[in-house]
């Protein structure tokens, strides 16, 4: 590796964890911070779902939920799960951990920038958490923070909480901008010799594309956030119609970022799923280049769909036609990506290990989220569904697979690499089935309440005769019980995680018999990652290559003496393969 970065400079003792510039340590810091924030985000949803199921009753561990605390809880839940769980776990933790290992270098291109990125992120998490305890409590204007509600304490009753929320979000963006610089630079400049563009594993591609997408989309929102901060603190009127401002301007800035943000977290999740599927189905990914191209296409189109969040927000109704069209266009690359993933399974030898179950569940559940999005992207039906629980259910069927299902797939798949031990398969499967079944039981009922017109962010339905009906309330109670079950099953995961750290079977360098470079390093990899820097000889997914003894052919393994074509399988160079079916070995 080209930059001067020596293991000898690493601080010792506890400081090792605080000041480490090792990409793996920073990845763990992001991972564990993200998991801790997920506990807070999980607690908030527990409280407000209990209020919805049993309105007015004191919730155990919290007490009675007032209208203002309900708003603060839903706002915090949304903000935390997207900005402080999905982003740090999917992009920062997996990006930091995997990129140097998978492209075959010893660390990120800018290790100190990397450390700064985490420190800023950590500060933002602390700031957000602290906002629960200031006078007035945490901000309650929804994670979208639409002005004028978010600008004035007179309107939102949480002037301090609102400003802290905004500063925390802005700091979080800074952290990920710094992180993104590293991901892109490292992937472009620090790849192992021989690794060409289309030899890069898909998950790395996805994280890099997501980072570019994030960088390109977040600028307007940061500018918007500064204007909002000025409106809150020094009394400017950017969003105040009484002084020539326009509240809808914020919506444009927010969703210009907000919709690409969906793909910022979706793409790394799809990447993780691709890696897991290839390894556990022993299959080369179907149409590797198509996956990369569709990811790029999705990213580009995602800049042209933002106003579908604003069909009924007071924009010119003729604009909706344009954004309906672009929104349905984006379904094409995303659908193609899903088709490619499904096609990858064809001809595989699928082991239903825990990570593979998560990866397959991602496809199964994400399809729900994908198809229900059509109802909302089509302007005519969005009039009815906008801001109902149908929307809530829809985006949880995208975000839960993204943040949690793919996250669990990644953690269970790379746990042996991260900690050198295997996780318990039986506990893993109990956790899997418990989580998946209860997840569906939470959100399928909410599609129905949404279809019945149940609108969002209502803490008590008793004032709405058309919504305060027994069958709707029973569905709400069912969703709440399913949520309690899902939270309970996470205990199994944490137990398994903690137990396997010390008690799991020793993994060895390559327990899954995988092909990518990270499995060449020891488990866990030492500082500097590889004893000898690897050289890459072929594409990342050479499974089931005919006429070889093993069913996998690692990227780092020099071509055998049997006269194999040395660049076998590098995308576009592969042998005409469909005829070359592997004969069963006997």
């Amino acid at each position, binding site marked *: 590796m080209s930059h001067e970065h020596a293991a000898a400079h690493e601080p010792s003792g506890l400081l090792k964890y605080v000041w480490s510039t090792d990409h793996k340590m920073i990845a763990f810091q992001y991972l564990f911070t993200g998991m801790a924030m997920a506990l807070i985000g999980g607690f908030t949803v527990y409280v407000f779902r209990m209020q919805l199921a049993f309105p007015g009753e004191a919730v155990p561990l919290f007490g009675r939920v007032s*209208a203002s605390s*309900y708003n603060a809880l839903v706002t915090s839940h949304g903000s935390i799960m997207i900005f402080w769980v999905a982003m740090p776990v999917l992009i920062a933790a997996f990006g930091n951990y995997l990129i140097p290992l998978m492209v075959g270098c010893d660390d990120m291109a800018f290790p100190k920038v990397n450390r700064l990125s985490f420190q800023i992120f950590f500060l933002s998490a602390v700031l957000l958490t602290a906002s629960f305890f200031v006078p007035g409590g945490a901000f309650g204007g929804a994670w979208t923070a*639409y002005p*004028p*509600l978010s600008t004035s304490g007179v*309107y*939102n009753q949480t002037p301090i909480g609102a400003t802290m929320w905004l500063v925390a979000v802005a700091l979080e963006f800074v952290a990920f901008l710094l992180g993104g610089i590293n991901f892109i630079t490292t992937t472009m400049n620090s790849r192992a010799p021989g690794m060409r563009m289309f030899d890069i594993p898909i998950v790395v591609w996805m994280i890099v594309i997501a980072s570019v997408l994030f960088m390109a989309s977040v600028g307007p929102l940061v500018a918007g956030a500064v204007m909002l901060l000025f409106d809150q603190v020094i009394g400017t009127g950017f969003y105040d*119609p009484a002084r020539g401002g326009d*509240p*809808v301007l914020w919506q444009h800035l927010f969703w210009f970022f907000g919709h690409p943000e969906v793909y910022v977290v979706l793409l790394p999740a799809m990447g993780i799923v691709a890696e897991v599927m290839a390894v556990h*189905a*022993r*299959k*080369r*990914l*179907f*149409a*590797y280049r*198509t996956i990369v191209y569709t990811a790029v296409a999705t990213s580009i189109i995602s800049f042209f769909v933002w106003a579908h969040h604003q069909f*009924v927000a*007071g924009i010119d109704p003729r604009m*909706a*036609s344009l954004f*309906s069209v672009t929104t349905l*266009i984006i379904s*094409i690359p995303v*659908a*193609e990506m899903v*088709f490619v993933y*499904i*096609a990858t399974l064809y*001809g*595989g*030898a699928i082991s239903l290990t825990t990570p593979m179950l998560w990866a397959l569940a991602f496809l*199964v559940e994400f399809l729900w989220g994908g*198809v229900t999005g059509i*109802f909302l992207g*089509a*302007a*005519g*039906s969005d*009039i009815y569904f*906008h801001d109902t629980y149908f929307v809530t259910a829809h985006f949880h069927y995208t975000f839960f697979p993204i943040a949690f299902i793919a996250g669990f797939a990644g953690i269970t798949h790379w746990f042996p690499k991260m900690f050198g031990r295997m996780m318990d398969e039986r506990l893993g499967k109990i956790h899997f089935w418990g989580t998946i079944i209860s997840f569906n039981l939470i959100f399928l009922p909410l599609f129905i309440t949404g*279809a019945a*017109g149940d609108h969002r962010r*209502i803490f*008590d*339905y008793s*004032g*709405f005769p*058309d919504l305060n009906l027994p069958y709707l309330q029973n569905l709400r109670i069912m969703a709440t019980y399913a949520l309690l079950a899902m939270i309970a099953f996470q205990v199994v995961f944490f137990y398994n995680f903690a137990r396997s750290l010390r008690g799991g079977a020793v993994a060895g360098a390559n327990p899954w018999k995988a092909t990518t470079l990270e499995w060449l390093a020891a488990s866990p990899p030492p500082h500097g990652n590889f004893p000898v820097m690897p050289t890459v000889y072929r594409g990342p997914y050479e*499974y*089931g*290559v005919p006429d070889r003894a093993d*069913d996998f052919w690692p990227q780092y393994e020099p071509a055998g003496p049997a006269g194999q074509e040395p660049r076998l399988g590098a995308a576009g160079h592969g042998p005409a*393969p*469909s005829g070359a079916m*592997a*004969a069963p*070995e006997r």
Partner: protein
Amino acid sequence: MISWFVPQASTFAADVDSLIFLILVIVGAWFLLAEAVLFWLILRFRKREGVRSKYVTGDVKSEKRWVSYPHYAVLVFDVVIVVAALRVWNDVKVTDPVPEETVRVVSQQWAWTFVHAGPDGRLDTADDIKTVDDLYVQQNRTYRFELHSKDVLHSFSVPAFRLKQDAVPGRMIAGWFKPTLAGDFDIQCAEICGIGHGLMPARIHVQTATAHQEWLREHGVMPALAANTGAAGQGGAR
């Protein structure tokens, strides 16, 4: 399908429902097909002793068509959905039918004020009827609504009409509806508007022509009286 849950109480409610049903059929079929293929592949290609995976790259045309044909089909169905969706959208939001009457809808934290034209059928005259949280309209009459907000964003949502429109402070946003079904229905605020967002329910009362005339007679304040009382008496009328 939505009418199983919520009655169709306006002229365009059935159109919105048909659109939703059309989308449901199309994406439902795709969804079932995709899930079926997915589960079939998972079951069919489970790891078996001694059977190696096939080496399929997906980079040649004969294989790619398994993905590209469905992909073209998605495109075709997208066009169908867009055309249907925009027809409904234009009907509800873009067309501007000649109204028989105008009502003003004013939202604020956390209440709705409705200004009815009163017996003379015109707004901003002395016989206007102002009510809080109750909107009275006549069946089969085309209404134009003028939507205002006094403070933050709100959203005027009448699920039974399949109508929803955000209110933006500093703007007047106009729209229309024509109620077809007599009865009382929820008006919801569908945009978070502060800590009382869940506590600003209102009702729309769609009345038959005779019942509406009766209501007008009862609540239409004579101009002279209105001047004396500041039309205050309407505040508590329910």
